[in-house]
């Protein structure tokens, strides 16, 4: 623990004339930061902003609607990561609005934690179609790619809603106001894709960046690094998680992903299309693509298709434009028990993390551009 105290002391000794806004883009980072009470332990003018770090939160409403429709087919077993089950969509009031509701109404929906479980469900139920609704960032998509590459049982297909992390950060940096002065880059994503993926933040946008792990010590080390870079105006991507994140990431995983998946323009819930930010299953593996097997298409005439629930500010929370408690629904209409937006559902969602760590009231605000 002396390690964390050491970094904390060094950070506290630094002086800044204006607030410094540091964004993280990983639900795991946000969890550690909030659970460790890091914000309260830091000087007031160092702000840590949760950014686009929750794959469940950005999964398009249409995909959830589609998954629920598939689940209601009695010949289909729908499997999904547990986080996805409670995410609401805009289905008509008379139909189930989440996979959890569909399950309660009799649909065969099964929460899983790994592709291995998906495979055993498919093998144990050869007479059923098993659809794996896989939403996630690179870290979650890599095992799905490995599963595809190894060959899937005939009755198994994947409804993939995979996303890349860096394009969302690039989109923010290329917009008029990025809203942050330094970036803490995600450790697990970098372990697969390589830390080099984040070079553009430093080189193209002159923004300090550091890759961090998931302990308070690692995050504080990365925070100290970006603050140093910021103070001396010498942005340089630093890898503070070198034990786990090698240069080049995991080449085998990257190769398998490149073989089985295409990178495509993709819709982010409440945010819109971000170019080259999503994964689709490559044509060579089309047999295992649920979108093709079931000829799934988005019905754009459906009421409120793709929209966020009324009043829900999840999109701005995901983009780090506001803190969770700046949403007017936070803790009032929207709580983990009765979530309105996806950020209050997932353990990766900033609203859920803040609420379950006891952050109440709506006084915390992100500073305007310095």
């Amino acid at each position, binding site marked *: 623990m002396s390690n964390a105290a050491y970094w904390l002391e060094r950070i506290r000794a630094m002086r800044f004339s204006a607030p410094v806004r540091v964004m993280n883009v990983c639900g795991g980072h946000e*969890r550690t930061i909030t659970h460790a009470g890091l914000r309260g332990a830091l000087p007031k003018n160092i702000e840590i902003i949760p950014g686009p770090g929750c794959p469940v939160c950005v999964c398009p409403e249409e995909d959830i609607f589609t998954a629920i429709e598939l689940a209601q087919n009695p010949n289909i077993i729908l499997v999904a990561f547990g986080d996805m089950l409670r995410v609401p969509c805009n289905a008509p009031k008379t139909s189930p609005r989440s996979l959890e509701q569909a399950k309660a109404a009799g649909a065969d929906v099964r929460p899983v934690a790994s592709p291995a479980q998906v495979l055993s469900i498919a093998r144990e139920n050869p007479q059923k179609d098993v659809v794996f609704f896989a939403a996630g960032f690179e870290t979650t998509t890599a095992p799905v790619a490995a599963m595809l590459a190894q060959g899937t049982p005939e009755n198994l297909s994947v409804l993939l809603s995979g996303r890349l992390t860096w394009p969302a950060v690039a989109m923010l940096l290329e917009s008029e106001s990025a809203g942050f002065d330094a970036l803490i880059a995600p450790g697990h994503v970098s372990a697969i894709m390589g830390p080099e993926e984040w070079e553009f933040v430093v080189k193209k946008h002159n923004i300090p960046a550091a890759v961090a792990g998931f302990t308070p010590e690692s995050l504080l080390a990365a925070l100290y690094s970006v603050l140093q870079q910021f103070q001396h105006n010498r942005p340089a991507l630093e890898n503070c998680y070198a034990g786990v994140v090698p240069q080049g990431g995991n080449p085998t995983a990257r190769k398998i992903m490149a073989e089985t998946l295409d990178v495509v323009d993709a819709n982010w819930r409440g945010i819109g299309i971000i170019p080259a930010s999503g994964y689709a299953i490559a044509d060579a593996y089309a047999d295992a693509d649920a979108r093709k097997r079931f000829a799934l298409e988005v019905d754009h005439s459906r009421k409120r298709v793709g929209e966020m629930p009324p009043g829900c500010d999840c999109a701005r929370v995901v983009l780090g434009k506001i803190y969770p408690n700046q949403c007017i629904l936070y803790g009032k209409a929207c709580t983990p028990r009765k979530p309105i937006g996806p950020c209050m559902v997932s353990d990766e969602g900033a609203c859920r993390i803040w609420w379950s760590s006891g952050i109440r009231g709506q006084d915390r605000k992100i500073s305007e551009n310095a």
Partner: protein
Amino acid sequence: MSIFEDRFVTLAHGNGGRYMRELIVEIFARHLSNPELDVTTDAAAIALDEGMVVMTTTDGFIVQPLEFPGGDIGSLCVHGTVNDLAVSGAKPLYLTLNAFIEEGFDLRVLDRLVQSLGKAAKEAGVRVVAGDTKVVPRGHGGGLYLASTGIGVRRPDLNLGLKQIEPGDAILVSGPIGDHGIAVLLAREDFDLKGDVRSDNACVTNLTEPLLKLPNLRFMRDPTRGGLAMVCNEIAQGAKVQIRLNESVIPVREPVRGVCEMLGYDPYYLACEGRVVAIVSADIAEQALAIWKGIPGGEDAKIIGSVEKGKSRVIVQTMIGGERLLEELEDDPLPRIC
């Protein structure tokens, strides 16, 4: 004829006839025998010390898998019920048992689980005095469900309860938390994770009895489902006090911490099956701790926090000097996905 000439439980083992009698005699009565267990009567007579308060509790057991590192449903069925009596200040004496067996269940596995139950009961000093078996059709049970009711006696002058808790009191835990939750989770093999974690599944009377002699023991509870977090929340709400826990001293084993980090679980919400949380007045906290540390199973005991005046909530003082609230468990803890 022996029951073991069949390999699996059939519906005939629940039909009230010869098969059922063989099942009861050759498995249940064989492993659970004691002077007060008479399988031929409809009700058992039990003797209780006069002047003592009779305490009773009941619990059901549906754990999957049925066997896991550090225990099984049989020993759990004893410890779960006995421990509820123990933390209430009672001396556990008797158990009754219900077994719901699924058609097709392997008789040798059943034999092994009932043997484990018998051994756990013996070690805990309790006698199974009544029981019932039912066989449910295939697909209607997880192999074996058990339920047990416990009967014990308590000193009439013992004053334990949420109402006794006062600001200033100290909170102790008898050992590392979350072992049972993680051991069962790993045994399910759903996560492709391997780890060397054994359930803490154990009888806690050896931990509770010595504390009963202390004059200012206020309250005890075993942190099972919902873990330490829910026990503390129940105390905060029931006693209308604020609880402050010190993260840096709460014992959590490294492998448990590792799995929690990987899957996004919070160890404070994970089940224990052989730990005790005790609240004592501050002046006897060190004494209580020393007692526990001298007992097998209590070596890693710690004073983990204190009771304060304030809102009914649980504050965790984090290792880096921050604070967070430990909320009530919202829903089933599910693993995060990246």
